């Protein structure tokens, strides 16, 4: 009897621990809706969602990377670079000196080119990490500087502020990614987040590739012996993270209708925070897309909620920091409990 109650006790504790990010999110929502009376309105929630979409998309790419046991510090810089690529192509076009004329692309082509370049940068990260055994932290730190430098070089540090395009050139309509859908209050960026989230959650749970990257992060040697092509799959993961960052760059430029080379600075930290808050283990092997989205919402609610209450930006930083470290401590506690429960099953048998 005693044993049984102990078991159900730890089962209940486990449930609480697993749902901790959701619980934190609910507590934050309740708190802010009391402190800031207009917090709980459709407009505010969609505004938060619009911000969350950016961290969320970056966080999904980051979750994949962290699951393999890596890290990607270059995503913030890729956001800036991808915005500059898009901005430059719309505003200035591509000048081909040899032929003496300027090429303009339509908006879908511009976006596809930016995403491909982001993906390529990610693939280069992956290539250095796998082929030359550069630690992911260092490889992507280097790429962070390179990508940011390229973004600055594109315009010599200036902003592309005319992204409306020209009807005659057929490159109008870029504002779509920053707007809402039709007359609904739903931002397009949220739809993009949902599409990417559903797709990547499916890949993570239902395809061999998804399970292979979890195995790589859980035990790389065992994964190799099991026949998993570690290098190839890691490169794909970094490629995906780079592509996600490029998408965020496009959305950001569209929301502002301007491309600034410094945009996205330190966003990699928000992405890491969202992943970690969502239960992704920095040691690799464990993580879910859903968790990361909730983690991104926690960060978004803290940011926007505190702005609405008039809390200073400096306090926001402190509170964010405490929440992140607290989440990891609880995470560790959950892992220990999980191990204990598994060992109990083993001894019962």
């Amino acid at each position, binding site marked *: 009897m005693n044993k049984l109650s102990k078991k159900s006790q730890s089962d209940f504790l486990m449930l609480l621990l697993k749902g901790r990010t959701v619980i934190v999110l609910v507590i934050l929502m309740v708190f802010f809706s009391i402190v800031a009376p207009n917090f709980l309105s459709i407009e505010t929630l969609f505004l938060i969602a619009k911000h969350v979409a950016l961290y969320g998309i970056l966080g999904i790419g980051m979750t994949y990377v962290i699951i393999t046991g890596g890290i990607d510090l270059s995503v913030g810089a890729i956001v800036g670079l991808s915005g500059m690529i898009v901005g430059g192509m719309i505003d200035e076009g591509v000048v081909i000196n040899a032929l003496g004329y300027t090429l303009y692309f339509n908006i879908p082509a511009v976006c596809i080119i930016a995403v491909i370049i982001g993906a390529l940068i990610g693939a280069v990260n992956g290539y250095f990490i796998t082929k030359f055994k550069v630690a992911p932290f260092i490889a992507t730190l280097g790429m962070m500087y390179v990508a940011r430098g390229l973004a600055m070089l594109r315009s010599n540090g200036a902003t592309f502020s005319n992204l409306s395009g020209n009807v005659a050139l057929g490159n109008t309509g870029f504002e779509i990614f920053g707007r809402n859908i039709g007359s609904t209050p739903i931002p397009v960026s949220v739809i993009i987040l949902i599409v990417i989230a559903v797709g990547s959650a499916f890949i993570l749970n*239902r395809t*061999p590739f998804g399970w292979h990257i979890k195995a790589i992060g859980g035990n790389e040697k065992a994964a190799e*012996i099991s026949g998993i092509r570690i290098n190839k799959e890691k490169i794909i993961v970094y490629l995906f993270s780079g592509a996600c960052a490029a998408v965020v760059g496009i959305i950001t430029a569209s929301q502002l209708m301007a491309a600034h080379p410094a945009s996205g600075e330190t966003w990699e930290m928000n992405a890491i925070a969202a992943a970690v808050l969502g239960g992704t283990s920095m040691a690799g*092997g464990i993580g879910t897309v859903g968790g990361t989205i909730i983690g991104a919402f926690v960060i978004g609610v803290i940011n926007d909620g505190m702005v609405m209450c008039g809390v200073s930006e400096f306090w926001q930083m402190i509170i964010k920091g405490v929440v992140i470290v607290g989440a990891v401590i609880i995470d560790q506690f959950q892992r220990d409990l999980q191990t204990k429960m598994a*060992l109990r099953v083993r001894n019962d048998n």
Partner: protein
Amino acid sequence: MDKNDLKVCLKAENITKIYPGTVALDEVSFNVYKGKVNVLIGENGAGKSTLMKVIAGIVHSDEGRLLLFDDDGTSKEITIKDTNEAKANGIGIINQELSLFPNMNVYENIYMTKEITKSNGTLDEAAQRKGAEEVLKKLHHPIPVDTLVGNLRVGQQQMIEIAKNLIIDNLKILIMDEPTSSLSKQEVDVLFKIMRELTASGISIVYISHRLEEIMEIGDYVEILRDGKYIADAAIKDVKLSWIIKSMVGSSSSYSKWDRKIDWSKKDKVLEVKNLNLPKPGGGKLLRDVNFNLKKSEILGIYGLMGAGRSELCECLMGLRKEHTGEIYLNGKKIDVKNVSSQIKNGFAFVPEDRQSMGLVQCLDILKNFTLSSMDKYSKHGVINKKKESDACDSKIKDIHVKVARKSLPILSLSGGNQQKVVVGKGLLTEPEILLLDEPTRGIDIGAKYEMIDIIRENASKGLSIIVISSELKEIMAISDRIIVLSKGLKTAELTGDEITEENLVLASYKGH
């Protein structure tokens, strides 16, 4: 040597140590005689290292006690919480894996955790340097004390390990766990000379080795363990090598004999390996010109000491050692070994030696650990068909009798034997033609060992060709149709039928040492 000449300086009494799933030590007692080389031997998993770790404070026994004796014969019970307390009691250990810091120099390593400091709390480097020079001189190895330990040869590093222990104040007992496994013959001779000097100065040595001939040369007194139990002890000069082997492996075979009555000359060669060579990083070779073949439905055993090149051989076949040279023929056709996934496609499956670090992914559940190598089989257009995957896993669980409550539980919820079955099952799910098993019964309890042998036999009779590596003589003799013996990377014997005897195997495994 009369037993009366022997003075006990440490007595371990009725030591019991239980790990989940196995009893590592079962009421084992052990005497350390003063000024002697006390040898402890047994097969892998007999409990030698565990017993030494208990004495050195690295692991804690569940039952039993340790008694330390003074020169006048009075004893006191001691409890050793950690290595520092062991050192305070004059007990030092040299582990099987060296515990040196390659990024630090010789004297820094020797004085690690026993640093000499000046009155102001800073390191007294001059004193450490002088002390290190003195102790190395005593060991006849005047290695420059500023050398980085990472740049020393293994033999020299071994000396640093010994030097580290000699600076313990009042060192009484020095435990050496397989100190010679990576030394050359000359280095071993020097080590033995030093050991004799140490014992002459009154230090007692506890010596663990798999090299039985060495034990006959250096040992004074021997105790034999088997399966965590005390078997026998004797003065070395009173016994013969054959007695030691017999005591180590046990007289009555606990494994049933399996007479297959197959005319192997009529069976097709599934695998043929010619001139397999594997270079060793830093010079030399891990495998030299190894030739062998494997027939359809045959169980081929590979026996050898640690470092003989057994695991490396399997790793070459599996595509984990790209630097190997030689020819590998599969069903008569030469194959190009590219990587693990291509070898799995070629019909190979590999169960590695260490299931925790190489076999399992601890954060995945039982189901995924089963299907990790074969997921593509259950997928269509890159999407896993969960039902197919689950059915395949279920049938394997039934097939090899894994005790599983639910497949969605963590892999850690299984006992060692069942975890091992999952690793084997993962290999079998790829539907291999050739199964490579590296120590498939290591670290699992005796019941699980029998079950593992049944699994191996069952699959062999279904037509699977199997290569088994095992350090346990009785086991490899019972399961193999044919055994090849490796020693220092050379194939030193190939035995079938009545040639398979303990004596032949042991002698072949020492050839070239």
